């Protein structure tokens, strides 16, 4: 196919207060190509796409888009309906679907006048059916979206864009919620569509996807376009250097010999309200000097397992045995007392108390410690000194230790939690999605701490959706699906992916 430019972003700049989110970014998109947009968190990828889609108004710069034949015409900025009309479709990371209406209704919503007395369903149905058969995207149309799987919802999102005659599709972190196999099928469908003339921009920080599915890539750092190249000329090293500005060492753990079992869950069952929060006869053994990786698609019971190990949920059946002794009275307090450290998934809501200061959050799990309080009165000098030492040791940066902890960035909140957990040298560490949403630097910091804890003799349970992280760190891998744990049959990405999806035989 002859290359022709369908979209040109010229000199886009956007400031949020003192922060320069996008600095003079220029990007061109060719017809029928897959362009990967890479960058760390906070590099400005999402800001850029939100300007393209009209959610934000750029401070300067303009956007040109191909409408008819070969003419690039300027796009009206700051108006989502103009972007829609010009044929830009955006698939957000958080789906923009109403769950109480059907996929069909979501797709056609807003395509017709709100004030027509009847809905013209037949024509819409025919059009959607033809888009589905051309693109290979398939989803049930007539049941409420709330009942669809994540993969199906994503396909509905894409169908929604195509229904509005999008010829440029923007996907924000499309594979974050998919199994490797689902991701593969998404990309093969996208390829089929680009062959029919669609152009795709996808935002990601997963190197593997960029290298295997994109035609060209653009790297953003600190709001600037720091490099674009053909994917065939790129390598993982080259991209990483562009993304962080220097070459970083990928954290990988040297395997060491695990010790004896320190924690075992025996035949644990929890009857939750739905599939997402139930466990069925789960058996798990954690050894000292071991990182146990729990892989799985989110919503398969990982959170209830994490809650169980944190003492937030008591099992209906089964026992938790710590170094040969069954734990009675399962409660968060008892679990912390017995030597558990927890790094929760939702660090903002479960990891810290946002309104309390950084120094208060650092001692929040040891309020019964006489060093911290005398007859219920907090010893603020000790607490502040503790916070100062830990902030330095764990590199927690923010407006100050006496300021509310919610003012910290996500990475620094995670470091605060690490400081609190690791300082107690817990024997068992539960890390639930510890690096999600962190940039590369902060993520590798977290991973280093987990490895240190293991080398010190601790046992680490690592729950993660990021298969690469599990493959890189874990000494042993189990897969969680439908509230059950299965030992991984091998450490290959394909096998584990299949087990996550439920195709294991």
């Amino acid at each position, binding site marked *: 196919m002859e290359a022709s430019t369908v979209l040109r972003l010229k000199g886009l700049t956007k400031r949020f207060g003192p922060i320069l989110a996008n600095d003079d970014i220029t990007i061109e998109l060719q017809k029928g190509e897959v362009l990967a947009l890479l960058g760390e968190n906070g590099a400005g990828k999402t800001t850029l796409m*939100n300007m393209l889609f009209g*959610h*934000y108004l750029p401070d300067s710069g303009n956007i040109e888009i191909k409408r008819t034949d070969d003419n690039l015409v300027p796009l009206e900025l700051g108006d*989502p*309906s103009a972007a*829609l*009309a010009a044929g830009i479709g*955006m698939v*957000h990371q*958080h789906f*923009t*679907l*109403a*769950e*109480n*209406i059907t996929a069909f*209704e*979501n797709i*056609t*919503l*807003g*395509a*017709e*006048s*709100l*004030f*027509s*007395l*009847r*809905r013209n369903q037949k024509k819409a149905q025919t059009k959607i059916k033809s888009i589905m058969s051309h693109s290979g995207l398939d989803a049930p149309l007539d049941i409420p979206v709330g009942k669809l799987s994540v993969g199906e919802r994503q396909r509905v999102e894409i169908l*929604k864009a195509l229904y*509005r005659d999008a010829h440029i599709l923007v996907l924000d972190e499309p594979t974050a919620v998919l199994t490797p196999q689902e991701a593969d099928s998404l990309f093969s469908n996208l390829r089929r569509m680009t062959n029919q003339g669609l152009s795709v921009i996808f935002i990601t920080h997963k190197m593997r996807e960029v290298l295997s599915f994109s035609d060209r890539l653009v790297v953003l750092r600190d709001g600037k376009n720091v490099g674009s190249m053909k994917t065939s000329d790129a390598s993982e090293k080259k991209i990483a250097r562009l993304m962080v500005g220097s070459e970083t060492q990928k954290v990988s753990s040297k395997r060491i010999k695990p010790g004896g079992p320190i924690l075992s869950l025996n035949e644990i069952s929890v009857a939750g309200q739905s599939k997402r929060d139930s466990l069925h006869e789960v058996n798990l053994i954690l050894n000292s000097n071991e990182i146990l990786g729990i892989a799985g698609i989110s919503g398969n019971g990982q959170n209830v397992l994490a809650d169980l190990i944190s003492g937030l949920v008591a099992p209906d059946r089964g026992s938790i045995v710590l170094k040969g002794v069954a734990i009675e009275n399962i409660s968060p307090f008892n679990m912390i007392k017995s030597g558990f450290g927890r790094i929760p998934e939702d660090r903002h809501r479960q990891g810290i108390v946002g309104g309390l200061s950084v120094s208060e959050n650092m001692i929040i799990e040891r309020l019964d410690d006489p060093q911290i309080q005398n007859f219920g009165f907090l010893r603020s000098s000790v607490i502040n000194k503790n916070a100062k030492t830990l902030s330095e040791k764990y590199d927690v940066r923010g407006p100050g230790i006496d300021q509310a902890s919610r003012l910290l960035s996500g990475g620094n909140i995670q470091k605060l939690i690490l400081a609190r957990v690791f300082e107690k040298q817990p024997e068992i560490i539960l890390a639930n999605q510890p690096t999600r949403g962190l940039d590369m630097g902060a993520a590798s910091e977290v991973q280093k701490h987990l490895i240190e804890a293991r080398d010190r003799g601790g046992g680490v349970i690592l729950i993660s959706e990021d298969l690469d992280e599990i493959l890189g760190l874990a000494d042993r891998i189990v897969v969680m699906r439908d509230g059950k744990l299965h030992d991984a049959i091998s450490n290959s990405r394909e096998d584990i992916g299949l087990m996550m999806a439920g195709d294991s035989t």
Partner: protein
Amino acid sequence: MIDILNILLTDSFWAASLRIATPLIFGVLGALICERSGTLNLGIEGIFVVGAMCGWMATWLGAGLWGGIIVAFICGAFFGLIHAVLTVPLGLSQHVSGLGITLFATSVSYFTYRTALPDVASPPRIEPFQPLDIPVLSDLPFVGLVLFQQTALTWLALLMVVLVWYVLNRTNLGLAIKAVGDNPNSVDAQGLSVYAIRMWAIVIGSALMALGGAFLTMSAFDAFFFGMVNGRGWVCIALVIFASWRPGKALIGALLFGAFDALQVRLQTEMGAFVPGQVFLMAPYVLSIVALVIAARSADYPRALLTPWFKGQR
């Protein structure tokens, strides 16, 4: 037991149930539209008072009955607009704003009434809506007797149930209202205005609430009294949950409440000798709480209810 059966078999009981239910039908439909779009409207109690006062006063001043209804509709819409501005683009607490509207609307109504009529001991009366005689329907055996006693406003309320159901389930507008109450981003991403849809839903919903108030002074009675709304607005807020935000169930809920209320009046005369009257007065409210407890446990709240949405923040 026989007494209750006897009561249930009289046409006057059913006619009274429907009459008592009428303002609630308007109120529940109004609250339902607001909540389906994602906004709780606790201004309902005050908007009832506004509707009752404005509709009656306009008629008394010579606007005619339907003129009064139009005035009530517009005044309700106006107070709805205040709530809409405060809660949608400004995103303030829906509870605080709603309660504020109720206090404000009630006081303004009383103030206006007192200013216009400083010296009257008994409120002036208007000629209210009369029962409507519809040729074929009124001739039906039992149903005819029940329906024959209703005024045009009751018919309007029943028509509104059908209309609201149709709009919510058969039109693009209804789709947008349901979607904006579940996930406003879904509407925004399709290029529709979240603010416009939510604000219009609140304005129209509030206007319907005011019609419920107007029914009290223009059909059920013929004058305006202080305290005449008497918690009907709050009952509607409970009935919306009972109805799971569905117009058809809203009608059933309102009728049930009407029936309880009609029944208690009749039981008072039958059994007033042994049981204090207050027990009967209490009964409909107690029963609506019980019904609510049963229904609300499985209630499927609009997911974005009470959550303000701001453009550009996601």
